[in-house]
């Protein structure tokens, strides 16, 4: 099933998740504010052709959520799915705008931790997270990163990176499917767009 706009173009993917496009939200917000000022409908229609009003935070979050630059942190087999397969033609993360893998934390928005974190690499994970510029997000990919996985009883494995740094999205799997990685990014997108949900 394909949902069409009035002008016949395919609607963006967000529609399938019950999401309102920003352009509609902004139009409604403009309507609401002009009505509060007591403007008559003719004036509202004229003003809306020139000016749209929206909270700045909303615009920024909209921009951030649509072009996350991931910092790929491959530590084990999850890197093959999360950093390689998901970027290639079959799954193609760039359809969603998240394909710009950065080799440096200073240029990245989201830290994608793929794999087992041992106690020796743990200080490095924390340090790289601290080097990222705000706002920054973390996806813990795979059983090992979220809880230590099959190695939780080991002498040298950190039982989940949430013991080290705050995690935004937990992505289970051993390793997770590339579709699941895409889903994690889309969940993170929702979380960024609706910041009020994340705070609860």
């Amino acid at each position, binding site marked *: 099933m394909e949902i069409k706009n009035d002008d016949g173009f395919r609607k963006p993917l967000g529609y399938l998740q019950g999401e309102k496009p920003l352009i509609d939200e902004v139009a409604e917000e403009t309507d609401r504010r002009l009505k509060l000022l007591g403007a008559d409908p003719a004036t509202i229609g004229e003003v809306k052709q020139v000016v749209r009003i929206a909270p700045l935070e909303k615009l920024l979050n909209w921009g951030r959520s649509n072009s996350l630059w991931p910092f790929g942190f491959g530590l084990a087999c999850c890197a093959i799915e999360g950093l390689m397969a998901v970027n290639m033609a079959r799954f193609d993360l760039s359809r969603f705008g998240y394909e710009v893998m950065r080799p440096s934390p200073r240029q990245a928005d989201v830290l994608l931790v793929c794999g087992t974190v041992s*106690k*020796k690499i743990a200080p490095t994970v924390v340090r790289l997270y601290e080097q990222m510029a705000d706002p920054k997000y973390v996806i813990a990919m795979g059983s090992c990163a979220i*809880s*230590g996985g099959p190695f*939780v*009883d080991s*002498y*040298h494995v950190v*039982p989940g990176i949430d013991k080290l740094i705050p995690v935004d999205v937990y992505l289970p799997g051993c390793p997770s499917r590339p579709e699941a990685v895409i889903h994690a990014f889309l969940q993170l997108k929702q979380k960024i767009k609706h910041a009020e949900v994340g705070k609860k």
Partner: protein
Amino acid sequence: MGNQNNDLLAKIKAKHPQVEITENGHIHVPVNHLVDFMRDLKDNFGFNYLTNLTATDYKDYMTVVYNPCIAERAEMLHVIVKIDRDNPQVPSMVPIWGGANWQEREVYDLLGINFIGHPDLRRILLAPDWEGHPLRKDYEWETYREE
């Protein structure tokens, strides 16, 4: 290993009467004869590549295991050295096969065996300030499993 090596093993046994060769082709060498034996394997038998070096903890004693081979051929030997568990020491193989360097560091790291004559014997996998040797049978650690 096994049958195709029988001629070779017989030659080795004739030249080195100190070693013991088991039915399945394992060569047990006394520690004090190890360096001469390995040097001879490399210089006169052509074993130019040490594919593997590892060790095992048997609670009463430890063994160090070497797998030298001839890179151009399929022959590989299984050389075992039995050592004292309380004072584990073996001569280093780095002067003979340079590739033993990191493998001996790994064995030192995980089992605490001292390789006498190693140029740079320090931990390789665990953090430098780690205490204990985790692959020893009596090693104890706390688990972080959450019930």
